[in-house]
């Protein structure tokens, strides 16, 4: 999911702690911010630190003077076989090719696990928006595989390059494509194709498995130890330390040291961190959940991609609704009473009031709007996506509408 989604889910998690919300009325603490901070902590650690420590065995750098697709395809094929032959992981980085401030020379690679081929096609110039929007034009994986079977990978990648939004007439003529072969059996854990465009470019790690196959991990430095339940436990003491009264500790007052804010901070930090791991599990990439006991990323549930607009929108909407509910429920005097609970005395101290008002709120503020949104999604799928996505087959059904927007 997107960064803001993790951020809001974290805040929503924190808002479930009454002290974090009630504090707005008396202490004015910033306790609730911990939810946002630890909600996005996993990606902060990965993208601002972990990635810089990652070492590569091969680094592919294509230049505008030498737009050679063989460099990428052959290097990847070689790395796969090297991993199988040596029994050790091999890491490859594909550098981007920045043409100017506005434009990036793109190229796409595809790993076909059935034919044991790596293909690369030099693509057109694209802006950052073009690159980020590519996923919204991509057909589903199965459709892709059928087309590769029928027309070959170069033709499919060429079609993607020509039909996805890009700077017109910027693709090299004639098309520059290359197919390299490898021998090992592979287990690809991500999409079959990836475009090299913006930011720092994708990485791959080829890891020999016990069954003899080579596992292919996309951006392997991502979602390892940083996206784990284990690390989440370590966030608790950090959150606690931020709100603990250290002066009281040195004065020997343990009760003041471990004050209610610090105790709440302990749990908020852990749960907001775990919420990130949980939400990411809905995507394709998965996470390494229990290091050091587990070594690899588990596969995600593949419900959506991180860039999919509607899942992000839905989760953000639900998060905002939860925050607003908690603002009301934990206020000294609630601002509103849902109609179903009107007339029931006792307010939120009365369980019946709580349940009825919550049911009313969930029904009207969450379920109905989301059903409406889902109806729009269906409409979007049949009208927009079907008309805009790249058609590889005559009988295109519009499946996998989320597209291959990449998972982060």
């Amino acid at each position, binding site marked *: 999911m*997107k960064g803001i989604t993790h951020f809001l889910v974290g805040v929503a998690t924190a808002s479930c702690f009454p002290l974090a919300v009630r504090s707005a009325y008396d202490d004015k603490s*910033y306790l609730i911010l911990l939810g946002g901070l630890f909600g*996005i902590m996993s990606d*902060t650690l990965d993208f601002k630190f972990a990635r810089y420590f990652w070492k590569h065995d091969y680094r592919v750098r294509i230049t505008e003077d030498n737009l050679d697709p063989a460099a990428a395809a052959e290097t990847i094929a070689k790395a796969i076989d090297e991993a199988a032959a040596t029994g050790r992981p091999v890491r490859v980085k594909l550098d981007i090719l920045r043409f100017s401030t506005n434009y990036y020379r793109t190229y796409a690679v595809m790993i076909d696990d059935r034919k044991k081929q790596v293909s690369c096609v030099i693509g057109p110039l694209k802006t950052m928006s073009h690159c980020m929007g590519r996923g919204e034009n991509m057909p589903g994986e199965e459709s892709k595989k059928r087309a590769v079977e029928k027309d070959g990978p170069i033709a499919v990648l060429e079609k993607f390059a020509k039909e996805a939004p890009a700077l017109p007439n910027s693709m090299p003529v004639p098309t520059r494509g290359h197919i390299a072969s490898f021998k090992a059996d592979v287990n690809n854990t991500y999409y079959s194709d990836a475009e090299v465009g913006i930011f720092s*470019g994708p990485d791959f790690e080829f890891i020999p498995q016990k069954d003899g196959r080579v596992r292919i991990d996309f951006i392997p430095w991502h979602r390892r130890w940083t996206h784990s339940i284990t690390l989440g436990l370590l966030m608790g003491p950090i959150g606690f330390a931020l709100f603990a009264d250290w002066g009281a500790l040195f004065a020997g007052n343990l009760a003041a040291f471990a004050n209610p804010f610090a105790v709440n901070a302990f749990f908020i930090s852990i749960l907001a961190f775990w919420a990130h791991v949980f939400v990411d599990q809905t995507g394709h990439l998965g996470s390494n959940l229990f290091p050091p006991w587990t070594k690899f990323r588990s596969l995600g549930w593949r419900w959506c991609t991180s860039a999919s607009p509607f899942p992000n929108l839905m989760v953000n909407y639900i998060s905002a609704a939860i925050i607003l509910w908690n*603002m009301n429920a934990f*206020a000294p005097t609630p601002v509103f009473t849902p109609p179903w609970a009107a007339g029931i005395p006792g307010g939120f101290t009365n369980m019946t009031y709580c349940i009825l008002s919550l049911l009313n709120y969930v029904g009207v503020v969450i379920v109905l709007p989301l059903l409406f949104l889902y109806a729009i999604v269906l409409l979007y799928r049949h009208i*927009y996506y079907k008309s805009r996505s790249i058609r590889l087959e005559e009988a295109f059904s519009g499946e996998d509408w989320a597209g291959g927007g990449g998972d982060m």
Partner: protein
Amino acid sequence: MEFAFVMQCCLVALVGVAVAAVFSMIPGLHIYNVIAFTMLLAFAAIDLFKAMDPLLTTCFIMGMVVGFAVLFTVSSQFFQPCDDSFRSMMLPHERFLYEGRGFEAVMLGGFGSLIALLLIAGVFPFVTGAIGLLRELIRPHIYWILGLVSLFILISEWPKDHGVGKTVGQRLRDGWGQLGMGLFVFAAAAVLGMFVFYNTIIPVQSAFQSLMPVFIGLFALSSQIMTVISRAKIPPQHYASSVDAATHDVARGALTGVVAGMFSSLTPGLTPGPALLMSAHATASAGDKQFIIGGGAARVLYYIGALVLFFMPDVYMRRGGAAINISLFFVPETTEQYYLISGIIALAGAASMAILPLFARMCGAITQKVDFRHISLGSMVLLTAIVWGVTGWRGVVMMLVATALGLVPNFWHTRRIPLLAVLLVPVSLNMAGVGSKVAIWLGFR
């Protein structure tokens, strides 16, 4: 309310739109500066001002705000091309100018503005209760919401390096050079904001405009300097007879803009920039067109939507420079006044939208006849004169300090959004009740 009076209100609102159109020609000039200047003139001719019905002056200011909200980005669109050597990346509307599509960018932004105007004038009157409830719900929480926005600005500064360093140290240095400067800009802007709030050097008689020199320095003057030293060339512009915008682009762009506009208009201290940043992420906005349409909607909802909350029954929220200035002489009392203001917004909005294409063509034509650097140079002189006139030489000193800080993001390829810490941090800390403690700690008290 008599028909003749309503007609007078409509007339002065249209005059306000015309005044805004003239001032919108000057890139970097903010309508709040113009309103402040108007108020100075009004107070100078106090007898004449007192003789007028305050609702007439209110409608005039409303016309100015509506006209400005719709038109003010047009001059920046055409007169402030971005020199790509100072940028890590270009924003979509800047790139459109280089592709000869400046007019298209203006019209796309206009779509967003139109949707926001329809919402304010056509939907708001029916949902005042809900807006009032939302306002009541979030009011005690504004301080941490601003803290949250600040935190997101800091956290969303992701590295843009290309990771080409050979060693870990080189790669960290490449990535954190830009990241670190983003954090520095945020911290420096926050300190500057605390100084302005707690120990400003602006003379007391101009204290109501103490933020003006800082904002002009951080955002307007620094941009003008970058434009003056720019070596960019503006290509001839294409004026299409229709705009290529898919329904889903308009819908998703508008959604982004509406969320950002509502968020910023209901949250004191929050401007549309950071609200749009969060909203664009939250609604998974994608592509150039959605970005531009969202910007248009967010700006209009922020400027006009925030001001209309001042007149809205169930809300009566004084938010933003225009509302503060209006509150000096007018207190809204009746629902009838709110409906009049809604009608004025619809009228002024329609007039502004009608002017928009002509205004854009005119600005586009000017770029082919007048060197844009001269326009920015003239604008710099004018802005400096306004700051000098309103706040004296001390204001100019503040402006120069802020300008120096405003230039930093350009030279380090970071975003300009951390500069908004100048407002976000002091407002948040003050609302949390710790502003003065922090000011003492910083040595400002």
